[in-house]
């Protein structure tokens, strides 16, 4: 199986879906002539032209709104945000329009659109460029939220998101764009709402999404090698819809859980998962649920402090040991 980057996997997914469906349109700042701020759309404009790959002004509220309107009429826009942090000026379009129109139209109007881009800290771009709004958006019934950890998942999930008839918030990570994974050449889709056990284990469940999955895999190696603890790593992949059964099955097997996310802890995704576990698997718990998240402050600009703000394998190991 060829090794390709997370960036290339996204690029391939876009190209394949553009070829497959004439209604798929990519739009965003610098996506066309500049080949994308992070080069995710590299070569697409040259290949598919200005009708399919559309540069937009620096005005998220306007172009996200345009995509919402287009999607209502059957276009399948894939909107790139240079950073998910910039979505905040477009929240009215995303939440009130994309998120609510299906409900408010009695199911007559749907928004088959994807909004994608990086949503991560850890790259020294400052507090206003480092937001991780997966918890905010997943709080809106009507929106779907996806956060792939590997190139394989990025490609399969993006293709499924483009074909989905509801608005899908697709959260990537600039630290992963250059990382490589094995991705098959033949076409595949990963359904939204299906988690993936990235590593089987028996003693403790490490549950994560996005780049935190890789942190958990590194922590699991340390737990096995240095402490003889067999950790299972569950990658949520999709935050909404959430694969509750996969989470519960793992906890029922290991009886312990550490929830890991690069999101902030307060009202974070893992607060929801902790609530789910205690409600539906209470009698299977042999220890309290633990969480490891970003430290609760705006994204820290000082590089040494920024490094410790995000979850590290060492922090995950420490939390795991506290309940094993």
């Amino acid at each position, binding site marked *: 199986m060829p090794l390709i980057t997370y960036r290339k996997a996204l690029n391939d997914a876009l190209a394949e879906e553009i070829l497959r469906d004439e209604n798929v349109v990519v739009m965003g700042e610098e996506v066309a002539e500049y080949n994308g701020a992070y080069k995710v759309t590299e070569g697409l404009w040259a290949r598919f032209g200005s009708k399919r790959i559309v540069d937009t002004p620096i005005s998220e509220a306007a172009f996200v709104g345009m995509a919402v309107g287009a999607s209502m009429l059957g276009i399948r826009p894939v909107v790139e945000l240079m950073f998910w942090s910039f979505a905040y000026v477009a929240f009215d379009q995303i939440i009130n329009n994309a998120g609510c129109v299906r409900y408010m139209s009695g199911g007559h109007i749907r928004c088959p659109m994807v909004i994608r881009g990086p949503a991560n800290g850890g790259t020294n771009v400052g507090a206003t460029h480092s937001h991780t709004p997966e918890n905010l958006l997943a709080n809106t019934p009507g929106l779907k939220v996806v956060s792939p950890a590997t190139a394989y998942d990025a490609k399969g999930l993006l293709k499924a998101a483009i074909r989905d008839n509801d608005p899908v918030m697709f959260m990537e990570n600039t630290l992963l764009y250059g990382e490589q994974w094995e991705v098959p050449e033949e076409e595949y889709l990963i359904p939204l709402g299906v988690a993936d056990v990235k590593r089987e284990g*028996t003693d403790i469940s490490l549950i994560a999404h996005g780049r935190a999955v890789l942190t958990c895999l590194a922590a699991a190696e340390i737990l096995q090698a240095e402490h003889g603890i067999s950790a299972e790593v569950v990658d949520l992949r999709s935050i909404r819809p959430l694969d509750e059964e996969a989470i519960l099955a793992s906890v*029922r*097997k290991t*009886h312990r859980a550490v929830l890991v996310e690069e999101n902030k802890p307060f009202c974070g995704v893992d607060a929801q998962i902790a609530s789910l576990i205690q409600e539906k698997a*209470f*009698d*299977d*718990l*042999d*220890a309290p649920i633990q969480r490891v998240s970003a430290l609760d402050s705006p994204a820290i600009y000082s590089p040494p402090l920024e490094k410790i703000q995000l979850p590290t394998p060492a922090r995950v190991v420490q939390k795991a040991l*506290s*309940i094993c």
Partner: protein
Amino acid sequence: MPLPIEMPKLSDTMTEGTLVKWRKKVGDPVEMGDVIAEIETDKATMEMEAFDDGTLAEIYIQEGEKVAVGQQIALLALAGDKPGDVAAKPSAPAPAKAASAAKAAPAAPAAPAPEPAVPVSHGPVKASPLARKIAAARGVDLTRITGTGPGGRIIERDITSAPPSTGKPAAAPAKRPTPATGAPAAAIPAIPPIPAGPNDRVIPLTGMRRVIAERLVASKSTIPHFYLQIEADAEPLLKLRAEINATAESSGRGKLTVNDLILKAVASAIARVPKVNAAWAGDSVIEYAAVHLSVAVAVDDGLVTPVLRDASSKSLREISEAVKDLATRARTKKLKPEEYQGGTFTVSNLGAYGIESFFAIVNPPQSAILSVGAAVKKPVVNAAGQIVPGQRISIGLSCDHRVVDGALGSQFLGELRGFIESPALMLL
């Protein structure tokens, strides 16, 4: 709110501590850093300091009592606490009574003893939800369990390694967690099996299978086993048996088995090394005067160990007849409980199955089990250094190292070999 004071973990390996002396009394003011008590750990006696300022409101354990790490031992009233805050807690006399009642039981975890240790318990027991669920299914009394989880919390492993409480049998089978819920019952391994497919057979546990599983898991997980092996010349024993059986045939009496002779030899060897006929009792070792040999008998769906009572005072003929009767009734399930309880030493013989050597698991609460192999013909180097054909029998001894040390076990096996190789001695 008043602050609970817990038994501190004062060494890496400390799981429980003895309160040697209270240095403060109820009502005494306490300042941070004051020594409030002296605690004896597994290693040393250490001073326990207060971490907060306040008044010692209640003392829950008395001097000399031993409790688990994390268990509440006192209550510290902080400045601003109303008298009601303290009074609302369970009053001191009640727990103190429970404590003195509990003191009658063995103080340390006595794995093979019929009852586990009874740690003093006050207030709600700290146990994980999973531990509570398994304990309820198994009929385990949580107040009798010492928690090994963080802060002394009782967790799954503390329950699965504990024998069910006596007098309160495990819940009816219907109430047991089914395998589908993933809850390990007594002896079901913590690692779940591969789920049964359409062609696989799921065999419900019989009472016997469950008891075997529970007792052997308890044995292997609480008894520090070690193993000794010795080979003996079986020729003299086989020759004696042939001579006796030749006359038995003509006189119409039953034939002796090799195992009958081994049992006689074991009883004789125990008479010389009585320390192997003993049990670990937590705070002492009990050496039994009578030799009650448990004899492992394979039955249809498991095995039972009927007891040959007072084996050392029985003749070979009496042993042979008693064992034949016990084994027959074991196979037809006609044994009375007192006939398979109270053994002090077990003999397991797989010689009839052609097994040359093996090591059985100690049959708790006993301290040793003998594993007898088949008498086999093999080349032997004799005293003159020549290789000659011989009849050899291999004998293994599995021991509880808390009771039987290597030298003691070896001494016993040496005596046993002496009787096997000179069987006339045991007829004396």
